[in-house]
């Protein structure tokens, strides 16, 4: 017996479902901004491993931060074994 996984357009008043993704970005939550020192970064991936929003991405010679989603928690800077990330104040504005 197989389950008929019919794909039909359900009326929009039937049952709350969602197939579209939220487009909210959390970069504007940030009070402190992580800045990577490219010379110090050895691409050990520790920042990536512990970043809660997983906004660290790989560049050819260093790991960079996606500031659209980085909330500025500071874990990357705290955990970086090479002190390659500094937390600096966001500019006012």
């Amino acid at each position, binding site marked *: 017996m197989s389950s008929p996984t019919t794909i039909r357009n359900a009326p929009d008043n039937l049952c709350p479902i969602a197939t*579209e993704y939220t487009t909210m970005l959390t970069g504007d939550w940030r009070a402190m901004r992580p800045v990577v020192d490219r010379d110090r970064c050895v691409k050990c991936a520790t920042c990536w491993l512990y970043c809660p929003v997983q906004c660290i991405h790989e560049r050819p010679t260093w790991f960079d931060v996606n500031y659209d989603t980085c909330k500025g928690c500071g*874990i990357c800077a705290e955990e970086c074994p090479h002190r390659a990330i500094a937390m600096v104040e966001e500019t006012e504005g």
Partner: protein
Amino acid sequence: CPTGALELRKAGSIFNTYGDKEDLFVPGLSGCQGCNSELIMRHAMRKIGRNSVLATPPGCIPGMGSVGYNGKTGTKVPVFHPLLTNTASMLAGIRRQYDRVGRKDIVVMALAGDGGTADCGFHAVSGAAERGDKILYVCVDNEGYMNTGMQRSGTTPYGSWTSTTPVGEKQKGKTQDAKNLPMIMAAHKCRYVATASTGYMEDLYEKLDKAIAASFEGFSYLHIYSPCPTGWRIPSSKVIEACRLSVETNFVTLWEYTNTEGMRFTRSPDNALPVETYVKMIGKYRHLTPDQLAHIQAKVDEQVALLRIMAANAPPPPAARRPPAGSSTP
């Protein structure tokens, strides 16, 4: 230096293996700054992949938008809000139906909080474990109802401040000890039970591997201790440090249990630091009296002693008897 060369190599190795795998949550989830639950969710689902059905009972995990708001979702795999109280049961029904129609390769799983697991949803967890329902149940234990304003739960430790165990003249934090849920689950003879911490990511990844495999055979339970920077009043940048110290002081023990090999520590509890090293960095313990601290240390020692006995007595006879045909007991 909190991380030695060894840990550094591990981070690289996890990145090399999983870095290219898709993050199955949208970029913008509204977890607090430094949220450890968000870290767990993203890593766990990256590892598990798209062939899965995910339950996130009420709490921070859906609260940060994983099931979405008003018609938009935060998750790329099938995801739903079970009730706080019925996560394991709903998953059991899903699994049974997919098994019935021969779709046995889907990971049917929960990312649930401690309240829905240890307190009001425990009947469902216990029932599903007793029946051997083939699901992966991940409990993200942040020691209370953090999503609704930091009320105490059954896993809130002794002495901890919460909004319902406040600190005042007559009472200073929670007056009871936490229940040890993973030990209770081991007593259910689950296919797999393990504790983990994001301070020890390689260990967590290995346990996820085993837990996923076990979830196709029987009830699989993974308990991840998860500091909450907001509710525990610790700086968001210090979350991983808190994880690490909780383990180094034996406040949290890392072990795994299988119904064939029994219990074993995955990190030695020997040479532990005093528990004070850990609690002094956590704001919710700031008020502790010396007596309360001594109580916590005593309970930590007591628990480790019990676990040692269980681990020492571990392996049962190698060829454990198979259940009779038709039995659902793993």
